[in-house]
């Protein structure tokens, strides 16, 4: 037998073996590929960056502990820079080239909505880390999300305003996607919550002064509280303007600014007394001992902060929840088949994550209720849990 024919037969044999044995071999030690398209850079980088860090950190930890179903995880991360077009391209690449079994990612509602059809068509489970309610309403069969929605934030804020005996609200919203989405949701739930929106102002997400808008709200007759829908540096500048003008009305921020950095940017003096709905991660140490989330929150917080030497944010927590829900579902399903994995994710009950206790169903692909939000108040430069 010539050397060449040995080589050829070998190749042929290898090829056939690979074809036949592919599913069987996959079960033995082959890595499980998980995709992630995140906005690690660009305007949403403060969301995408901790998400990226969290996923990498925990995939390594899971692998160090023996992987899932005896197989290691392989994480494939692409950075879309906040651009929905690029996100969609990367999503296609994850499905067609990388052949991932599931996707944890989609930092913003925009990128998530752009990628959703790709994963729906491929019947691959997609756990989004973005806030918008349109991701899961109406329910798409393979799409899930871990963060709270802006509608829940509005409901939580309005409930707190009502509890103070107030009803007339002035809104100031960013013109970015987050601000506009939350503004729309707040307008929708205001009526049912017994709230009247009497002023409705807006600002560009990179504006450097919001005092004209705040002056208008202050001079609106009968306004009793101010709600700011926005994230990024806008709310910090709104809060500074609110202090500059010496406005005495209660000011509510959204969950979009639930990080220690917000207080630093707005300055502690200006932010004193500001209230916002936030995930429990923000006030982990203040939770009562018997709170089901307490242990997992403190564990995630210390792990992340020890590794990266920077404070945790709830956004990284969303990535943690998404990964853990997926891993738990893979263990339960003992399979990486898209539909079986989807059914397992959908069957998630009583999962304790950083965002709350998750109970999914065929009609609820988020599984959180209002109890997952904690109302916090900024006092003395720190977030304080107030009676929930």
């Amino acid at each position: 037998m010539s050397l060449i024919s040995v080589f050829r037969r070998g190749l042929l044999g290898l090829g056939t073996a690979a074809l036949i044995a592919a599913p069987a071999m996959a079960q033995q030690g082959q890595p499980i590929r998980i995709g992630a398209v995140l906005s690690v850079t660009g305007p949403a980088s403060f969301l995408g960056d901790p998400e990226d860090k969290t996923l990498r950190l925990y995939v390594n930890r899971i692998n160090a502990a023996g992987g899932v179903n005896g197989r290691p995880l392989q994480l494939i991360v692409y950075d879309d820079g906040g651009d929905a077009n690029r996100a969609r391209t990367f999503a296609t690449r994850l499905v067609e080239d990388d052949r991932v079994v599931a996707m944890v990612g989609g930092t913003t509602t925009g990128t998530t909505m752009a990628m959703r059809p790709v994963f729906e068509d491929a019947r691959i489970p997609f756990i989004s880390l973005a806030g918008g309610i349109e991701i899961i309403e109406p329910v798409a069969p393979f799409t899930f999300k871990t963060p709270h929605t802006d509608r829940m934030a509005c409901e939580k804020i309005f409930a707190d305003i009502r509890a103070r005996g107030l009803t007339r609200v002035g809104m100031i919203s960013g013109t970015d996607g987050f601000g506009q989405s939350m503004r729309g949701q707040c307008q929708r739930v205001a009526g049912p919550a017994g709230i009247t929106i009497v002023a409705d102002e807006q600002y560009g997400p990179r504006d450097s002064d919001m005092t004209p808008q705040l002056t208008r709200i202050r001079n609106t007759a009968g306004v009793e509280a101010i709600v700011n829908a926005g994230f990024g540096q806008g709310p910090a500048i709104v809060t500074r303007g609110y202090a500059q003008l010496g406005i005495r009305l209660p000011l509510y921020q959204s969950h979009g600014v639930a990080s220690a950095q917000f207080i630093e940017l707005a300055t502690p003096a200006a932010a004193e007394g500001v209230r916002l709905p936030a995930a429990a991660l923000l006030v982990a140490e203040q939770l009562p001992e018997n709170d089901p989330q307490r242990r997992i929150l403190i564990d995630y917080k210390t792990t992340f902060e020890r590794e990266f030497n920077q404070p945790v944010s709830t956004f990284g927590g969303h990535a943690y929840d998404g990964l853990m829900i997926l891993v738990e579902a893979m263990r339960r399903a003992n399979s990486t088949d898209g539909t079986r994995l989807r059914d397992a994710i959908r069957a998630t009950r009583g999962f304790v994550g950083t965002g709350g206790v998750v109970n999914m169903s065929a009609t609820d692909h988020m599984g959180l209720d209002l109890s997952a939000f904690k109302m916090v108040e900024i006092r003395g430069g720190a977030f304080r849990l107030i009676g929930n």
Partner: protein
Amino acid sequence: MLAELLQFLVSGLTVGAVYALVALGFTLIYNASDVVNFAQGEFVMLGGMVTVFAFAAGVPLPLAASLAILAAVGVGLLLHRLAIEPARGASAVTLIIITIGASIFLRGIAQIVFDKRFHQLPAFSGADPILVAGAAILPQSFWVLGGALLVFAGLWLFFERTLLGKAVLATAANRLAAKLVGVDTSFVLALSFGVSAAIGAFAGILITPITLTSFDVGTLLALKGFAAAMLGGMGSPLGAVVGGLLLGLLESFAAGTISSAYKDAVAFLVILGVLFVMPQGLFGRRSVERV
């Protein structure tokens, strides 16, 4: 009502002074080379970010600010040496595109060298607002306004009263003729990049206590500063200041009295209107069309 209008005026002047400072940075390089340097916003970013990081590392604020200006001047000179100088002789449009590329590059580097988060600086002289007839004014606003006036006066003196300034203007008017009468045009261009970077960084330092800063703060500021410079007349220091203040006032009054959702649209409509009637801007030089 009066207090309300006064508040809009104060807000407009503060934001306008920020735009004016950025617009002033465009002036020098434009005058020396007919190039609109779109990396001007990155100098503003560098000024703010270097100051923030040096200050956080324990360097006293004045020293941190000086460091930031030096760093920006260094980057400006490198930009000239490595990107503009090799393309010498290319058309102004090519050079403008090079500056856009440089701006994207600098932003990318800043993301890695610094980080992707927003940062703030404490106000230079306290954060307690001063109340004037019912309007609340931040002390930092005076710093920004004063800074814009100082840079304006400096630039005006430079162009009108110094030989070097005249050499810059001569280079802008006709590079070959300037060379023939003994102007070192290459030096003039390097100088204009260095000084422009210093102006940008100075602006970045003054405005950071108000606007906050991050690696990509330069993009929008450059756009607004450019609009202000166009409104005032590209190349005119007076035009930059007036254009900046006007743009700020337009935005704040539009937000306060017409609609906050459309304030940018209102401001840009006015700019378009002005440029229709006066294509050179309010204080721009009339360029002579040669046939």
